[in-house]
């Protein structure tokens, strides 16, 4: 697109912000008015406003010192376009994806933030209005959705793999981006006959570099499973169709298994065909168990179910298989789907719902007797991550965002924690009440294979100074505080997930 020519990467003052579109409003949607009123008195809502411009900063001011061995790019993704043509999305998950790239090189840290040019984003920004129903928003006179990629906003995660960069959104194809410029190349096609198949936002890369992923087709109740080589080639793809597969966002791997959690929900096809959004076509089934689906990696076909008490889930930390053959994993459990069905919708009109309880649970699956048990770890947390060197293996450290204070102004977290799974010890850093902490990830120090040897990096929104900070911690000592912090000259929209690439 021509506007790329006007993107300034370096401006004398060190601040670059390129206006690429003004948000016009013919007639304002009441959600936009409600949000604006609420945001005027609640600074925590600024992270949900969205962006109407892209970002670039050549040389971000740093406090402390960036470790010499920390070189590469930290990528993040999140929903960033929330308003168009006077209308506001009615769900946080609907915003068009904007990928952030924080590049660590010898001179310092630079940043660019660019929208993913999905079909939807291009068509709608050209039209100046939303054209399609999205995951959680129904619009008047929506164009028909003929394929999942019609609503693909590529906004949930971003993963570098085998020299490529993929923007991920569970409802559609991965979108391939240019790793340096973040130019959009287009939907990733792993094999011609798999064009348009969904590719989840939570692939798992094992320590050998093999990528596993899945894609859910909620109408068919089927998942496609992908095994991708470290070189980025599709090794094998299969489809598993099993009863009641719905609302699967993440999964975990062990050396021999793929592990999924299936909340007790159903997809009402009639509602969907009548024009309801994907979200509103889903129904909670009271009193039914949460099921664990375990698929054998050997054939990517054989599966079995286990049952856990009813619950809802977004994320896993990790899984492994112990010497007795038990599969163990952790996930962040919520009691029900109200977070996704209500809270993340209401926040878009400025209404902050009471925080739903989201707590780490440790699960043991007994493959011999078919029983699943779980242990609850108290503490409101989210965004679990582990050291990439231990994916699918026994692990010590689970990193999460943690909510340490009660407030009605937001439902986020101001702290990050490293929880030692086996001892129960917790190592915490609290940014303070003015901050909303986002997902933090472990970056392994090159040449080291010990779990935790390296850094924990992540962003936080400073709602008082209205800017986003990027902090680097010793991954084994969070309470010592950041080794270095880069403060951006702007606030980025709150986002979801990211990953690190060692190549600059």
């Amino acid at each position, binding site marked *: 697109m021509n506007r790329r020519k006007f993107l300034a990467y370096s401006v004398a003052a060190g601040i670059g912000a390129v206006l690429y579109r003004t948000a016009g409003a013919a007639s304002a949607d009441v959600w936009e008015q409600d949000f604006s009123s609420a945001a005027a008195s609640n600074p925590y809502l600024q992270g949900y406003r969205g962006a109407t411009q892209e970002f670039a900063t050549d040389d971000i001011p740093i406090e402390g010192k960036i470790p010499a061995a920390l070189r590469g790019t930290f990528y993040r993704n999140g929903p960033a376009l929330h308003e168009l043509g006077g209308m506001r999305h009615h769900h946080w998950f609907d915003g068009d994806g904007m990928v952030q790239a924080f590049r660590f090189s010898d001179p310092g840290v630079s940043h660019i933030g660019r929208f993913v040019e999905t079909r939807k984003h291009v068509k709608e920004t050209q039209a100046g209005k939303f054209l399609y129903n999205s995951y959680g928003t129904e619009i008047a006179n929506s*164009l*028909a*959705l*003929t*394929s*999942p990629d019609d609503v693909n906003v590529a906004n949930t995660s971003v993963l570098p793999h085998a020299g490529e960069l993929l923007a991920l959104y569970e409802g559609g194809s991965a979108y391939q981006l240019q790793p340096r410029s973040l130019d959009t190349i287009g939907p990733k096609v792993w094999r*011609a*006959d*798999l*064009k*348009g*198949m*969904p590719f989840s936002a939570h692939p798992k890369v094992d320590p050998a570099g093999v990528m596993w992923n899945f894609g859910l*087709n909620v*109408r*068919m109740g*089927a998942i*496609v499973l992908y095994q991708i080589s470290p070189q980025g080639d599709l090794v094998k793809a299969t*489809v598993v169709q099993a009863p009641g597969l719905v609302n699967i966002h993440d999964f975990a791997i062990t050396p021999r298994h793929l592990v999924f959690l299936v909340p007790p929900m159903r997809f009402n096809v009639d509602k*969907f*065909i009548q*024009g309801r959004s994907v979200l509103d076509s889903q129904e909670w089934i009271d009193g039914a168990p949460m099921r664990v689906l375990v698929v054998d990696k050997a054939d990517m076909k054989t599966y079995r179910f286990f049952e856990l008490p009813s619950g809802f889930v977004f994320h896993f930390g990790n899984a492994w298989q112990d010497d007795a053959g038990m599969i163990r994993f952790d996930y962040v459990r919520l009691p029900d789907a109200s977070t996704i069905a209500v809270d993340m919708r209401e926040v878009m009109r400025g209404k902050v719902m009471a925080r739903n309880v989201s707590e780490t649970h440790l699960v043991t699956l007994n493959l011999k007797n078919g029983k699943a048990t779980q242990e609850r770890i108290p503490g409101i947390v989210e965004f679990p991550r582990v050291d990439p060197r231990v994916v699918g293996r026994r692990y010590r450290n689970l990193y999460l965002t943690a909510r340490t204070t009660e407030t009605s102004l937001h439902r986020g977290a101001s702290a990050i924690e490293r929880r030692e799974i086996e001892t129960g010890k917790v190592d915490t850093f609290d940014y303070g009440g003015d901050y909303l902490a986002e997902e933090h990830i472990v970056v392994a120090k090159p040449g080291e294979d010990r779990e935790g040897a390296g850094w924990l990096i992540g962003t936080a929104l400073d709602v008082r100074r209205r800017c986003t900070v990027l902090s680097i911690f010793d991954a084994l000592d969070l309470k010592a505080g950041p080794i270095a912090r880069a403060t951006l000259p702007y606030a980025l929209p709150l986002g979801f997930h990211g990953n690190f690439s060692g190549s600059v």
Partner: protein
Amino acid sequence: MSKKISMVARMHQLLIVTCGILPAVECMAADLQVEVRGLTGNGGQINVGLFNRAEDFPKTVHAGIRIPAGASPAIGTFTGLPPGDYAVVAYHDENGNGQLDRNPFGQPTEPYGFSRDARGRMAPPKFEDASVTLGNDNQTIIVDLH
């Protein structure tokens, strides 16, 4: 050498002559020209299917045309059609295997489109949303490949 002209051909000639000279006479046939747009230049051919009954749509064609995929638009014509409702599906058979390929979740992996740019909701559109009414006059319709 005597020319042997078949009965059908005679009738056809008669129709043409009659239609040409006496416009007041009701003609029994018209042409439907299909303009297929949005070709991406990947070789193969454009397969165009014509449907005249809702119950056959979109699986069982009434008539079909193959156009080598070259410049956009690709143009083909169904001739001598009696008056009625017709819907058209066109797809770019990029690999030349004679069918609209789909992924394991049923989503077409080759570009395709319907007359009136009709779209279903994660499914083919209804016949009545895609159909045009053909009377006595020739018509041209456009199909955009997506």
